[in-house]
């Protein structure tokens, strides 16, 4: 089954074939399970570690993010250079982020202030819920409201 959809800014390349079938999307559940476990066991989802990071009181989170970026950089370059195709036979390609700087500065600052306040970023929101920390539902509900507000006033903001 091939489905073509127009490209949407900020949304990744339209997907086809196996990624649209039930078993095709199931592997992403497993990938998420993997990532969720890593977020908890590495303590990236810990409020305490986030506070420690923003006060420069420990190397832990900097080591975590630094080695994650370095690993991602090397393994992604190797994967692309190896000429291996993706699981569904496509050439591996990286979608470039839109150019500009305003949205990254203003949006980034806004997100950062939110992250420092409750110590929760979007990945851990889901992981903390799974761990049974129900009050994070409030963070998630208001994050949806914030996303909606952005959708409403988007055209009036500098990008």
């Amino acid at each position, binding site marked *: 089954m091939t489905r073509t959809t127009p490209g949407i800014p900020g949304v990744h390349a339209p997907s086809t074939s196996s990624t649209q079938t039930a078993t095709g999307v199931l592997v992403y559940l497993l990938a998420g399970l993997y990532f969720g476990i890593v977020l908890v*066991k590495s303590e990236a989802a810990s409020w305490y570690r986030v506070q420690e990071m923003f006060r420069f009181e420990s190397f832990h989170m900097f080591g975590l993010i630094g080695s994650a970026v370095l690993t991602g950089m090397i393994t992604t370059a190797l994967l692309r250079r190896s000429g291996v195709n993706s699981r569904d036979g496509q050439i591996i390609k990286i979608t470039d982020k839109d150019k500009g700087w305003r949205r990254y500065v203003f949006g980034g600052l806004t997100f950062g202030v939110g992250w420092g306040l409750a110590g929760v970023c979007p990945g851990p929101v889901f992981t903390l819920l799974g761990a049974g920390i129900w009050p994070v539902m409030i963070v998630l509900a208001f994050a949806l409201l914030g996303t909606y507000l952005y959708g409403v006033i988007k055209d009036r903001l500098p990008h």
Partner: protein
Amino acid sequence: MTEFLDVLRSPWPWYIGGPLIGLTVPLLLWLGNKGFGISANLRHACAILLPDSAKPGFFRYNWRAERWNLMFASGLILGGFVAGALLADPEPTRLSAAGVQSIQELGVQVRPGLMPAELTDLSNPGVWALLAISGLLVGFGTRYGGGCTSGHAITGLSTLQGPSLIATVSFFAGGILSANLLLPFFMAVIR
């Protein structure tokens, strides 16, 4: 058996956890040319939940093509259950001495768990306000900035995207500001 459980429950050092986080980028590229990012799910959820009549253009797209990302987020919940509920670290997070002191200065005790009881105590209206404001800024900021920690700091920097460097520096500037200035003020008011 208990020794084996102790190993599973103990936290991982950064040099194990970091590389495992980084591997997510090539993994998702190989699985289906997916750019790893989590905050886009908030947009997808809005696109699904909003009635057509009340939908701004930003939410009018074929979210079904992005189902993989919603599955990934579901996996995160599952991962939180496995690691955070079944295999939770019985010890408090091993913070630095300076970290423990700062947290106590906020009026928060370092106990086992991922989030302190003082910030999840919903009998305190101040906690509602803190969680709500934080969520609002996270949701608005990630969409405005086009990504979060996973999309910009991990994926974007890994794939040498200039805009992601600007975004990551801005996340940290905002986070440093709010953790050091806003949060102590907030905690002094609500506790």
